[in-house]
């Protein structure tokens, strides 16, 4: 049977609510890409749910003409788990930020990923608390001076993708708010992945942490500071594409191509490796020592919580027959009073 799906456009996903992010905020571009990608997926709007926590990014659901919940600080993955477990027919997105997802909600994020619930999590990383006006976040760098750290942050930052890979999330990727083509591709791949898809987006907060990702965005520097991951391809980067990443034992190292080093000596990316070690190693490549990888770190097929849960229900029905209340009530010792 074929059902005629109406052709949707970006406008179909737009709500009548005024978008209230600061002008110039990186969130706008992520919203635009999402609205562009969703119509291409062939999923009707009513089958899509956006769930967010609290923070600037968490206003996202109000701007998407789908179903949505703007929930509690940090807990969106838990809402999503309950929803997806009972409604596997829905496409569920979680929108979170570095504070929401990694500070107050770290536990939920971790458990959602290790269970591999079939939801798509997009973490807007701006390395600052925006909505509460500029305190340092769990991804802020050491020494970061903010309102709550006048002498500089003494908290070692957390790295979202290292956490995700540590939890063995089945899809892990990174993109950048202004790199719209790349972002679109990554969102699309996340949507198409079955199991938890975790996407970190470098997002600029132009009010409280402006230019924090400029090294990875600016035309002059980005080719040297980032390396685009492509499945089955060697890790090559640099303005002249003459730099590469080579594995030296268990350590990655930056090498210059030529002078006896060829592409074949480089690390070849394998996003489908069932062992997460390589992906973890990539997640630890950071500026200024390494170019930061952009793209899909990991995309593997793994058992999904919601699917397993519903399979158990079906299995129980098959084994015991659909539940019958009257026989349940009479299943223990019973007696008659006349």
């Amino acid at each position, binding site marked *: 049977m074929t059902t005629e799906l109406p052709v949707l456009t970006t406008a179909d996903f737009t*709500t009548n*609510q005024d978008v209230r992010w600061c002008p110039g905020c990186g969130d706008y571009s992520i919203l635009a890409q999402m609205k562009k990608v969703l119509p291409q997926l062939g999923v009707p*709007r*009513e*089958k*899509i*749910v956006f*769930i967010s926590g609290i923070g600037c990014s968490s206003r996202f*659901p*109000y701007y*998407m*003409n*789908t*179903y*949505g*919940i*703007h*929930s*509690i600080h940090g*807990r969106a*993955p*838990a*809402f*999503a*788990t*309950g*929803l997806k*477990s*009972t*409604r596997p*027919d*829905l496409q569920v997105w979680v929108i979170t930020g570095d504070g929401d997802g990694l500070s107050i909600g770290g*536990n*939920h994020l*971790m*458990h959602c990923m290790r269970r591999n619930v079939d939801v798509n999590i997009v973490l807007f990383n701006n390395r600052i608390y925006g909505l509460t006006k500029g305190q340092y976040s769990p991804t802020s760098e050491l020494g970061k001076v903010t309102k709550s750290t006048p002498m500089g942050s003494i908290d070692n930052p957390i790295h979202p993708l290292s956490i995700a890979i540590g939890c063995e999330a089945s899809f892990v990727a990174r993109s950048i708010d202004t790199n719209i083509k790349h972002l679109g591709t990554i969102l699309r791949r996340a949507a198409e992945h079955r199991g938890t898809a975790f996407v970190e987006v470098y997002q600029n907060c132009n009010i409280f942490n402006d230019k924090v990702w400029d090294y990875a965005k600016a035309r002059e520097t980005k080719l040297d500071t980032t390396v685009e991951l492509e499945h089955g391809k060697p890790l090559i980067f640099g303005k002249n594409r003459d730099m590469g990443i080579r594995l030296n034992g268990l350590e990655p190292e930056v090498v210059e191509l030529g002078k006896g080093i060829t592409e074949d000596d480089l690390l070849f990316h394998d996003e489908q490796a069932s062992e997460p070690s390589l992906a973890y190693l990539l997640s630890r490549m950071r500026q200024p020592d390494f170019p930061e990888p952009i793209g899909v770190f990991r995309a593997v097929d793994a058992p999904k919580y919601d699917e397993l*849960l*519903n399979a*158990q*229900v079906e*299995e*129980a*029905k098959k*084994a*015991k*027959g*659909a*539940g019958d*209340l*009257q026989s*349940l*009530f*009479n299943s*223990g*010792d*019973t*007696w*008659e*009073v*006349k």
Partner: protein
Amino acid sequence: MSSITSEPAPSSQKNHELVESATVRLAGDSGDGMQLIGTQLTNTSALAGNDVATFPDFPAEIRAPRGTRAGVSGFQVQFAAEDIFTPGDTLDTLVVMNPAALVTNIADLRKGGILIVNEESFTKKDLKLADLTENPLDDDSMNSYRVIKVPMTKLTRQSVEEQGLSVKMADRCRNFFAMGLVFWLYGRELEPTLRFIETKFGKKPDIAAANSKALRSGWYYGETTEAFISGYKVDPAKLAPGRYTNVMGNQALAWGLITAAAKSGKSLFLGSYPITPASDILHELSKFKNFGVRTFQAEDEMAAICSTIGAAFGGAMALTTSSGPGIALKGEAMGLGVMLELPMIIVNVQRGGPSTGLPTKTEQSDLLQAMFGRNGECPMPILAPRSPSHCFEVALEAWRIAAKFMCPVLILSDGYIANGAEPWRIPDVDDLPEIPIQHPTGHEEGEFLPYSRDENLARPWAIPGTPNLMHRIGGLEKQQGTGNVSYDPENHECMIKLRQEKVDRVASVIPPQSVDGPESGDLLVVSWGGTYGACTTATERCRSEGLSVAHAHLVHLSPFPTNLADILKNYKRILVPELNLGQLSSLLRSKYMVETHQLNKVQGKPFAVDEVAAAIRSELASMR
């Protein structure tokens, strides 16, 4: 069939004297299997047609230091030929497996009551573990009881000799020996327990055979020992006609929830995090996947309730279960539930607080938390079951209210109800009323307003997957009608009032408050939750003494039944017994501006009937 059940159960040649009721407590170390034999005695008595009520009491530690007072685990059961409401105040028979059990329980044995002791566990070492210097069996402190000293260890070992078990394993059959003896004493059938042993230990024939031998030899010990000239028997109770089964509170609650789901055409989702004494609801519901039940053991209490809200948004009958400390953690999400106006059930099986408090003991100290324990004006309907079997009904009622008014509903059970057992008349499923639920289909006329309201002020439960009804909800204040975020001051106040009004209107669909006893008079006892049995029995007893006392037991705590105000006016004095420092009492005072007198107990233990009766008598005496 193995030899265990093929051998006929023995029947007694000794005389068994008829008594109206009996209260028995089995006490031993937490590793001695007292809960198991208590449950068996309960089930067997229920099968014999008695009314039964139980009170299991065990330490919070899984294996508290062996032989110490802290490690004592007890199980009390009253079985009777009449309707009873409590597990009994004073004991007719106390079985103790060691000195610690003796000293911690003897005070509850009535004068002249039977004390059965395993005399071999009163060695110097055992006494020391129980912090005793002298053996209480050797002095005259036991003179007022009928002390039956039994060499249980030796006799048990002998009886299981044939199975060639290790000494340790053989000694683990001692509880069955003790059970056999108690069964003889009260003329109980061995058959059901023999069947139980077969099912439970069937895979280990040696153990099964040893346990049933120990059981039989305990029984024969009673039949042959000269210490007992006669035993007792309790006739069947005159319960309402029907088929009965024995249920525990948490189990009845779980069954009620599945039934509510079936009656509303929903599948059940439970998001929960293990916590004493609520975990058994999670365990029980996890068994019912073939009923379409989905249970999710979340990473914490917050995730448990948030997953519940997620499932409710998707259209499931969703609930979360916990106890006081867990409810404290859920507070923020409960507020979101109220704001989102989605139906769901939140269960608090109360335990001793504050903080970790007394996890395995009972208390009623979360009533004000249930009423007010969230930020902002955050009302929700609250119901409290009064007994184990009543949990079934309350579960259905809670869901009926949640679905009709589109709001979270809180059930306040307690540890005493959760772990207690009593006979339950099995309803005919077809006779139970349906719980109608309608979801908008997306083909209605006009613009969809997610916060429009029906005559109950309920908003439409539009679920994802429905075309044309896409909407976004959240914890920010809603604009009435559209559900859009609104910071408008007038709208905020309007919404605050609406959410309160909605809860208030629940009063229009709940049964009026009933009163046992005279419609007006000197004293009205007002109670709620698990103290129902003690208050009912105490007020009945006092009325039979000619006192003017009535009893109103509240199941609906928010909102109160509308006629409660008038009822309170009909008595000269109001007494509110509670297992807290006066929480219902203060609600009644502030709502109705009445003077209330209190009876409070916060010891982790239920009321004894005598305590309530004494309070009634002294209130009435002071009025003269």
